[in-house]
């Protein structure tokens, strides 16, 4: 909450869109702003009515450089927008930097996401240190078609205006705790010397030589990807990163999806009855990639670009009684196979399990 807990004295507020950006059609701006207001009116007993003339409680405009409020913009990137806390005159107003590229999708900066964040300030919220929250100060693209206000933001706004009048109280996603003993992963992979751990909308970045672990939204790095990635691996030879969800897979070069993707996993050689990949890792020495599906695994030759003969095989026949594999990666010659809250360290040379660890053992908890 903002110092002093400022709030609007009424629940029926008005807003006005003063001008438009040339980056978007006016109708798309109107829609993005309307949806941004709905993010908040869905969870608290506030209503927002648009007016076309006169002074509204919340005036929204696109502004250029020094625009007379003491907080100039400085050109593209950096500061994208700002807003003023509840109050008369400039109070509640939202200013977007006209020099940014505003969009209704993942390119440039998504107007809906930025507007929804700024309106949080207009209603009395400060920044949150929760990296999954809408009120986190740094911009991160997230899926706007299926947007759910995070629980951290719901808690904040309801602390100011009370609960929704709806019979069922809305709830939102919570950011997983890095050291939660119950934490499991959807996928794990190396990428240019770092380790990436995927869970829902989030990923943790861990550098082997740095103690701290960083949590980010997946969409911050790969806006084109959906949440809930199920498997991932790095192709070191090609410097590519491969991600799987359901029957699709994406190949990325840095943050850009390679032309022609996503493709169906069956194009890798899986039979039609395989609907999704649970885990994958690539053996950097042999150029073979291993795919885990239910209780079986396949081996793919990256050089020949085809599945090896004699697969699938039972996981238990090679890796021991570890059950279904959720995530896997190779590090320092060992293979780490994740299942629920545990991971198995496997030595491919001796074909033996070295030890069983907690899944979060990499996080210095």
């Amino acid at each position: 909450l903002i110092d002093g807990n400022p709030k609007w004295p009424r629940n029926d507020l008005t807003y006005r869109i003063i001008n438009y950006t040339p980056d978007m059609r006016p109708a798309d701006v109107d829609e993005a702003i309307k949806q941004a207001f709905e993010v908040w009116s869905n969870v608290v007993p506030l209503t927002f009515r648009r007016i076309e003339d006169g002074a509204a409680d919340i005036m929204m405009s696109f502004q250029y450089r020094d625009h007379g409020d003491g907080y100039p913009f400085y050109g593209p990137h950096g500061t994208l927008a700002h807003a003023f806390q509840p109050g008369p005159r400039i109070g509640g107003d939202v200013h977007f930097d006209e020099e940014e590229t505003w969009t209704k999708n993942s390119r440039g900066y998504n107007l809906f996401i930025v507007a929804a964040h700024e309106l949080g300030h207009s209603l009395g919220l400060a920044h949150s240190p929760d990296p999954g929250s809408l009120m986190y100060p740094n911009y991160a693209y997230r899926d706007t078609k299926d947007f759910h206000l995070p629980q951290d933001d719901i808690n904040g706004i309801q602390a100011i205006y009370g609960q929704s009048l709806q019979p069922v109280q809305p709830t939102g996603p919570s950011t997983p705790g890095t050291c939660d003993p119950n934490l499991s992963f959807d996928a794990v992979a190396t990428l240019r010397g770092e380790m990436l751990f995927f869970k829902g909308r989030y990923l943790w970045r861990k550098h082997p030589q740095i103690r701290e672990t960083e949590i980010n939204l997946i969409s911050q790095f790969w806006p084109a990807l959906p949440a809930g990635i199920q498997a991932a691996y790095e192709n070191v030879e090609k410097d590519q990163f491969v991600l799987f969800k359901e029957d699709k897979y994406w190949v990325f070069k840095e943050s850009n999806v390679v032309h022609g993707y996503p493709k169906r996993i069956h194009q890798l050689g899986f039979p039609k009855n395989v609907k999704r990949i649970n885990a994958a890792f690539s053996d950097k020495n042999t150029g073979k990639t291993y795919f885990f599906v239910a209780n079986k695994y396949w081996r793919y030759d990256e050089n020949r670009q085809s599945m090896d003969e004699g697969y699938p095989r039972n996981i238990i026949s090679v890796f021991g009684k570890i059950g279904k594999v959720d995530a896997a990666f190779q590090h320092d010659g060992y293979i780490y196979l994740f299942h629920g809250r545990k991971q198995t360290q496997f030595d491919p040379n001796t074909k033996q399990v070295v030890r069983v660890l907690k899944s979060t053992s990499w996080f210095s908890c």
Partner: protein
Amino acid sequence: APVAPEVDTMMLAKGYLRNFYSLETELRPSFRRKITDSVSEKLRKMQSFFGLKVTGKLNNETVEMMKQPRCGVPDIGEYV
């Protein structure tokens, strides 16, 4: 391994801390308080807010965070 930031990076950091962590400098004398927080103290606040390793020093991780596009509202205090 982290490399010591260059001089212009320090300029960037000071600008960032001035905008979002109310770092008081000679540029804004009217805002000067009796006790002036140092750059190091402000860096600590910023690192703590973003869950970075709190060192009070300008390391690469902190600079990368400062370079990210963001909202212009200060993260702590002095929001009017």
